[in-house]
């Protein structure tokens, strides 16, 4: 029987009523009395020297309060990078300045050159168009390998080259890996591109800066996944505002997908300008601005080699990746191709030797940073594609080849520095094969062939490292911040609870699932628990939401704080019932004394905490409010097996997805319905990457896919009905809920199955196509078929 409340129940998302009826309060809904509006003038060339900026006409236009350029930011810091990578030679990465407004040079299309603050948004925009920048266009570097060539134009004149870092991992294994590859019975080599993506959350970015003269306090309302991180980075490194004089509020946020983790120039600008002008200042991104100013995702060029022995056991993996950083280092950009990518190259397999080299490259493009999955989709894609290719070359069943090499014993220490605590890869694979009726595929293929279509089935596994933490480990890896999470649980006198979490919800449903956990622990109705997040003024210091970490890390902090509440409440109850605290039990919202019929309701005890007439004041303080910070000792490792079945029209190259199945192991599940929704969203984005989405630049650095006319977003029409299973549950061993995280799995696991399926279909039609780079548009599939004729 499915549970109807508490942990394990598919409680309806309480936040959806306001989201679906237009009653959400998003950043753009926030209008501060007296606010002025900002418009940015952005570069229309990819690379150029700023010889001057004539703002005189703009300054005289109606409603204009002030025009800002880089010279107004002297003494203000640049945008900081939160992660430092060390190169093979021991040197730290090259870290360029990242000014709020372009200083001396523009480095990508969309780089902000100047900003106008005016009474209305239209006046600001009119005036921004009247600014006359004198920009001498310079040759741009777009292609990563060209950017590293001798004599290539430099994105940053003060750096030695366009190479940000040259990272080797695990460097001590390099020789052994080279030897294993040289001596292997078989080596499969695959060169591929992991396509650049634009996150495109439904809500574009917005920032409202406000300054209170009476208290000398600044407030920033912003579309962020982690308001405390923004407060720390912007306050300490950019504007020099102490945290106690800076409040950051991220209210309802309409999707993030990673791109709202980072600290952006527009946020710092609005906060700065509000104080300068003593006026609230608001900026709302247009969709066009979003394409050229939100951090992009992916953009790796990779060569991977898989070595096997004569019995088809994996013996080594060698990988060389070029990772595009764009023109500046976005907040966590350096960590994505390294620690979120190199550490996942073992996948679900016991490959003893792995080496990866990553060259991170500056180009005249929008900065690239984490996007749903961040590094792990890139690792999964290359690994699961090269395994499929190896199976084809060796003439063995791709599922059998995977099964033969599965890790089966846990904990398992990989050769790439992480230790998987639990997993059951055979379990999810078995479930998957039943879900997709693999045995019936041959007959389905025959039916497609009778209709002139090619049918393919693609299967793959994935593993990811979630619950991004622990602080001590990430500190050793170059993180400049900790990665714990926090919660304060405040019990009110009448028994209701307010949980203030450092996690942030921007669509994930925390207000529902977090309440389920706390209500379940106490045995009260979920409606008695309110979840508060997104405001540094009323939540404890938190690191926010990304890397599928909210429940695993933030939820664990909440459990720890609730445990403290329960322990104290039991002491109060023991006093009231004149029993030993050790004999008190809390169940279904009632305190009982073991072996007696004494009982007290939850509300009786909470009332006593705040009306302490009869209270052990010599032992404990009145009140019932506890805070916990939780810093786990490992990542969590969700894993699973995915399958995709496609039909390809050989005349046009068009791919239709007929079935998509996901068998995941997320450990324990708090709300199955929400988990299913998270997987659906991830699958849609994974299918989008595999078939549709492509952020493309021309050789001069003009963004070709700068609107929805050319950037193909996945639509409901493109999706099959999903089959989702998460009944394989090997609980995480090191967090109190035994949860692993589910937010990114769909986007990580699905692209390889789509591509594997298309290749399978083409091969079945006699087309010797080994690989096609994503997105597999009809034109690309048709071209590949014809090239292979």
């Amino acid at each position, binding site marked *: 029987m499915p549970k109807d409340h508490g942990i394990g129940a598919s409680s309806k998302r309480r936040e959806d009523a306001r989201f679906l009826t237009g009653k959400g309060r998003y950043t753009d809904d926030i209008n501060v009395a007296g606010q002025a509006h900002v418009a940015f003038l952005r570069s229309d060339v990819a690379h150029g020297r700023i010889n001057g900026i004539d703002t005189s006409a703009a300054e005289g236009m109606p409603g204009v309060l002030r025009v800002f350029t880089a010279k107004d930011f002297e003494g203000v810091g640049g945008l900081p990078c939160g992660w430092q990578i060390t190169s093979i030679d021991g040197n730290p990465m090259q870290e360029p300045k990242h000014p709020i407004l372009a200083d001396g040079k523009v480095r990508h299309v969309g780089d902000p050159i100047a900003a106008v603050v005016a009474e209305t948004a*239209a006046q600001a925009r009119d005036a921004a*168009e009247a600014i006359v920048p004198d920009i001498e266009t310079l040759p741009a570097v777009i292609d990563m390998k060209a950017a590293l060539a001798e004599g290539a134009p430099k994105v940053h004149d003060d750096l030695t080259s366009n190479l940000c870092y040259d990272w080797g991992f695990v460097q001590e294994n390099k020789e052994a890996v080279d030897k294993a590859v040289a001596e292997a019975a078989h080596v499969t080599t695959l060169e591929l591109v992991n396509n650049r993506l634009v996150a495109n959350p439904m809500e574009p970015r917005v920032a409202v800066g406000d300054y209170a003269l009476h208290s000398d306090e600044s407030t920033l309302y912003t579309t962020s996944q982690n308001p405390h991180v923004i407060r720390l980075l912007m306050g300490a490194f950019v504007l020099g505002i102490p945290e106690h004089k800076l409040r950051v509020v991220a209210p309802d946020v309409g999707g993030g997908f990673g791109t709202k983790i980072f600290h952006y120039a527009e946020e710092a600008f609005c906060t700065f300008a509000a104080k300068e002008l003593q006026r609230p200042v608001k900026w709302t991104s247009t969709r066009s601005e979003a394409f050229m100013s939100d951090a992009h995702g992916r953009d790796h060029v990779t060569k991977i080699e898989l070595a096997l022995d004569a019995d088809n056991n994996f013996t080594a993996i060698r990988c060389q990746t070029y990772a595009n950083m764009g023109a500046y280092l976005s907040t966590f950009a350096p960590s994505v191709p390294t620690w979120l990518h190199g550490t996942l190259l073992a996948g679900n397999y016991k490959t003893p030797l792995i080496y990866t080299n990553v060259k991170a490259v500056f180009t005249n493009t929008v900065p690239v940073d984490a996007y749903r999955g961040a590094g792990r989709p890139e690792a999964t894609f290359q690994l699961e594609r090269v395994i499929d290719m190896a199976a084809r070359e060796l003439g063995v069943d791709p599922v059998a080849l995977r099964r033969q090499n599965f890790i089966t014993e846990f904990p398992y220490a990989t050769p790439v520095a992480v230790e998987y605590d639990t997993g059951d890869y055979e379990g999810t694979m078995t479930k998957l094969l039943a879900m997709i009726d693999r045995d019936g595929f041959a007959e389905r293929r025959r039916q497609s062939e009778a209709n002139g279509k090619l049918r393919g089935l693609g299967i793959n596994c994935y593993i990811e490292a979630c619950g991004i933490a622990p602080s001590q480990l990430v500190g050793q890896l170059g993180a400049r911040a900790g990665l714990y999470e926090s919660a304060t649980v405040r019990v009110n006198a009448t028994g209701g609870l307010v949980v203030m979490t450092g996690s942030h919800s921007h669509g994930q449903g925390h207000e529902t699932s977090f309440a389920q956990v706390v209500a379940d622990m106490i045995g009260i109705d979920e409606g008695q628990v309110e979840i508060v997040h997104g405001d540094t003024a009323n939540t404890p210091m938190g690191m926010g939401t990304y890397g599928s970490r909210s429940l695993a890390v933030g939820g664990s902090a909440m459990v720890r704080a609730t445990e403290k509440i329960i322990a104290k409440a039991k002491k109060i109850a023991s006093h009231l019932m004149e029993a030993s605290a050790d004999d008190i039990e809390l169940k279904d919202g009632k305190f009982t004394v073991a072996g007696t019929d004494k009982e007290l309701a939850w509300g009786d005890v909470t009332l006593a905490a705040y009306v302490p007439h009869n209270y052990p004041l010599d032992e404990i303080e009145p009140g019932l409010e506890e805070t916990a910070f939780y810093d786990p000792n490992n990542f969590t490792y969700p894993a699973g097996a995915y399958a995709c079945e496609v039909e390809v029209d050989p005349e046009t*190259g*068009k791919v239709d997805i007929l079935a998509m199945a996901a068998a995941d192991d997320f450990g324990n599940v708090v709300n199955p319905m929400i988990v299913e929704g998270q997987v659906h969203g991830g699958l849609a984005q994974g299918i989008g990457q595999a078939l549709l989405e492509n952020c493309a630049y021309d050789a001069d650095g003009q963004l070709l*896919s700068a609107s929805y006319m050319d950037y*193909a977003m996945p639509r409901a029409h493109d999706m099959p009905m999903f089959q989702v299973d998460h009944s394989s549950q090997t609980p995480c061993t090191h967090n109190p809920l035994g949860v692993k995280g589910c937010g990114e799995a769909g986007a990580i696991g699905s692209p390889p199955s789509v591509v594997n399926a298309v290749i399978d279909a083409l091969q079945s039609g006699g087309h010797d196509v080994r690989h096609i780079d994503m997105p597999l548009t*009809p*034109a690309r599939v*048709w071209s590949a078929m014809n090239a292979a004729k």
Partner: protein
Amino acid sequence: MYDFTLTRPTTIADAVSALQGEDAQPIAGGQTLLPTMKARLAQAETFVSLTGISEMRGISAADGVLTLGGGATHATVAREAAASYPALASLAGRIGDPAVRTRGTVGGSIANNDPSACYPAGALGSGATITATGPNGSREIAADDYFQGMFATALEEGEIITKVAFPIPEKAAYEKMLQPASRFPLVAVFVAKYADGVRVAITGASTDGVFRWSEAEAALSGDFSPAAIEGLTPPSNDMISDLHGTPEYRAHLCKVLTARAVRSAQ
């Protein structure tokens, strides 16, 4: 969007007269123009809305001809022309999404002549007659003379499309391959078989906009079957090259979709 004045006349005569004003531009359903205005890429002192003119909205079929008022929306055509000219109704019913079809008009589409729009293929493929009305009265323009290249037409300044007359063929079909992002045709083909021959009009493919594939027309006029064009080389009319397809791919699609349209039209 820049500031502008909007007028909404209720007769063709008033609209034509309003368009004589300084820097005045017509706006019909606005499904292309509004996004362009919002991006600040189009502006005018005055926009003259054509949506209030009831005499431009009618749809009638008589004597083998389907006549659409220039202001007939795609949704209306899809519904009301389904019996008289199903292939054209199907073309209208597959433009954009329901919101676009509810606002967009046949006159607006043909006046704009986007190289990837659907209606130009329907009009050229049907040998339609376009009625343009301006300060000097109305004139009729044959589709073969009207479409003059990408975004270029025979319309003169101040003229609006008040009527489009489509001769109803014996058989017809419209086949399109969608551009994955915009959902405009990547290539689409309108094939219509008349007593005096077959017309094949192709949109989305050429940098010159909609065109007739005369070689296929000749072959199909002799034998209206997919086999008739098997031996033909696809047209090479300056095919578009962009993110979504090479010239070779577009040329290939011309042939594939023509064959499919012939098959659908049987």
